[in-house]
């Protein structure tokens, strides 16, 4: 069994706390992406799972085995590094079989496994080359191959695609996803790239300042962010935010207009009156005439993106973005009304920044 269970993982360097009590339950065969900006503790968490770093408190279970105090090589897992970290003096073949050599796997078995993985990743024609003779994409494949060849069932990835160019990154992303569904390994993947998180993950853990802010399937993260941080971190352009007060009657007052949130599904029933933030994705806003809109705004400029367009409007000195068809964007008047698709909006408490 290769499910992973992290409980109360804490880590600090002196006064600086890197991880505040992280808990995570990962099912066998899941593809988990840990998403966060640099310095949020995501790589530290991965290193702790790998055993390359130690945690101050907390337990790590892989399957039924408590691996908290075990050496990396005793944890039944393998890892792909950001810089690939191939062994420069060894051929691709030896790079792949080095771990098995150390584990004293018989030669015939080693060769069979290397041949199998090389074929799977289409690097069988590169086996006699040195890493310095490979392109970035090929090195990446070898690094993944080295992780797969010991076929342990758990694979860790530390931003493995960030050194590739955009095209190769897209291709490798698709291949990794396919590899995952073919092999059924449990994969724990760290990245700062939300596209990678959205496209590959079964579940995404969004991290911020050493805490897991939300751990859910990518579509949930996008549609129902648990707090203001997740809402603004995920999605491009940044989610539109309108500040106001929420009445006990479920009406959101921007100070200028009152929006009845009748169509919004509150998490815990109707909350009490408080300051709140209404957050709406750019595709969940319709442009209407000023009289029909929830709010009115002035058109600032239009970005044509090819497939569709983004209209940027100014509301109370703040820019809001609206996604629409290119034709509609070209015909926009100067003064417009905005109508929100309320069931798809999110409302956050201004004080706690949590979803209401």
């Amino acid at each position, binding site marked *: 069994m290769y499910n992973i269970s992290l409980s109360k993982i804490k880590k600090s360097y002196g006064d600086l706390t890197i991880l505040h009590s992280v808990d995570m339950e990962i099912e066998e065969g899941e593809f988990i992406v840990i998403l966060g900006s640099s310095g949020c503790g995501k790589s530290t968490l991965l290193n702790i799972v790998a055993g390359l770093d130690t945690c101050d408190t907390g337990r790590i279970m892989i399957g039924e085995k408590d691996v908290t105090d075990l050496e990396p090589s005793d944890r039944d897992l393998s890892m792909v590094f950001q*810089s690939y*970290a191939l062994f420069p*003096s*060894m051929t691709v073949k030896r790079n792949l079989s*080095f771990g098995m050599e*150390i584990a004293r796997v018989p030669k015939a078995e080693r060769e069979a496994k290397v041949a199998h993985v090389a074929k799977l990743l289409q690097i069988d024609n590169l086996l006699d080359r040195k890493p310095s003779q490979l392109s970035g994409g090929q090195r990446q494949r070898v690094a993944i191959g080295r992780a797969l060849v010991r076929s342990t069932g758990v694979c860790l990835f530390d931003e493995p695609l960030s050194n590739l160019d955009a095209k190769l990154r897209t291709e490798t992303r698709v291949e990794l996803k396919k590899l995952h569904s073919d092999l059924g390994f449990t994969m724990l993947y760290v990245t700062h790239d939300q596209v990678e998180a959205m496209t590959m993950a079964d579940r995404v853990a969004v991290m911020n300042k050493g805490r897991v802010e939300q751990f859910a399937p990518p579509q949930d993260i996008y549609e129902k962010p648990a707090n203001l941080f997740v809402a603004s971190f995920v999605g491009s352009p940044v989610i539109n935010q309108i500040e106001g007060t929420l009445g006990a009657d479920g009406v959101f007052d921007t100070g200028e207009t009152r929006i009845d949130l009748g169509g919004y599904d509150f998490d815990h029933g109707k909350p009490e009156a408080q300051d709140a933030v209404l957050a709406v994705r750019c595709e969940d806003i319709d442009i209407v005439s000023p009289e029909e809109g929830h709010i009115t705004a002035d058109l600032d400029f239009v970005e044509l993106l090819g497939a569709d367009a983004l209209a940027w409007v100014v509301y109370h000195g703040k820019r809001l973005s609206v996604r629409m068809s290119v034709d509609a964007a070209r015909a926009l008047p100067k003064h417009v009304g905005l109508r929100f698709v309320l069931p798809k909006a999110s409302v956050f408490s201004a004080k706690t920044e949590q979803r209401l």
Partner: protein
Amino acid sequence: MSSPSNTTTMPLAAKIGLYAFLIASALFFLAPLIVIVINSVKPMADIRSGSLLSLPSEITFEPWRIAWSSACTGLDCSGIRPGLMNSILITVPSVIISVLAGALNGYALAQWRARFADWLMLLILIGLFVPYQAMLYPTVKMLSGMGIFRSYWGIIFVHVVYGLPYTTLLFRNFYVGVPDEISRAARMEGATFLRTFWSVILPISTNIIVVVAILQFTGIWNDYLLGLIFAGNDNMPMTVQLTNIVNNSRGAAEPNVNMAAALLAAIPTLVVYFISGRYFVRGIATGAVKG
């Protein structure tokens, strides 16, 4: 003086001036070597009659033969041949041990982030700054205590210990530039510290190994003081025997033999430089010994 960066546009006069200067500088530095080579092949008669700078009337290799196998060092008249063997026996193991140990130390300090790694490095650096003449007496006492004073292993021990701060520093600076993900990847594969060092790190260190080995080789080969004090009579290196030949008070002074002996003593370091010059330059260029 600004360096002439673009020689194609340099006027002819400047070019001639430049080469004149370069040739003059080369002659200045080569002059002692030329003098010593010329005199080492002169018969004694030439030396008694002429100046040191005159060309030989006939070329003879007799002084080289004498220096090699029959010049007297004190009571013993077998040239510096035994010293050559002693020097090799002392230098080779000292270089190998101090280079390997320095590499291991440097790697540990640079990549395994031991808790007090930086403080340790500072302590080791202090070892570089204290002149070893100042530590001679304590070292003598220490080796006597260990029972290896004036013995073969004693002199090797001294060379290794005195060489370690230097080799450690050079290797550490090299390994700081090697991405630590490589070591961590090896650890993931189950390699121990020593296995990682031996199978992964050492094979990518060829250039720096050559540089450090050459520096250690010349240093230890040319050493006189430590050899004189710590080697003991049976293991006197070539340098000590060379001085003994030159200072020998028995019989007439034979400058041609002395010079031949000096050249013989210098040949191994020259050979090492010629063979490994390419690596040496490459190693220097990798930045390990800059500044």
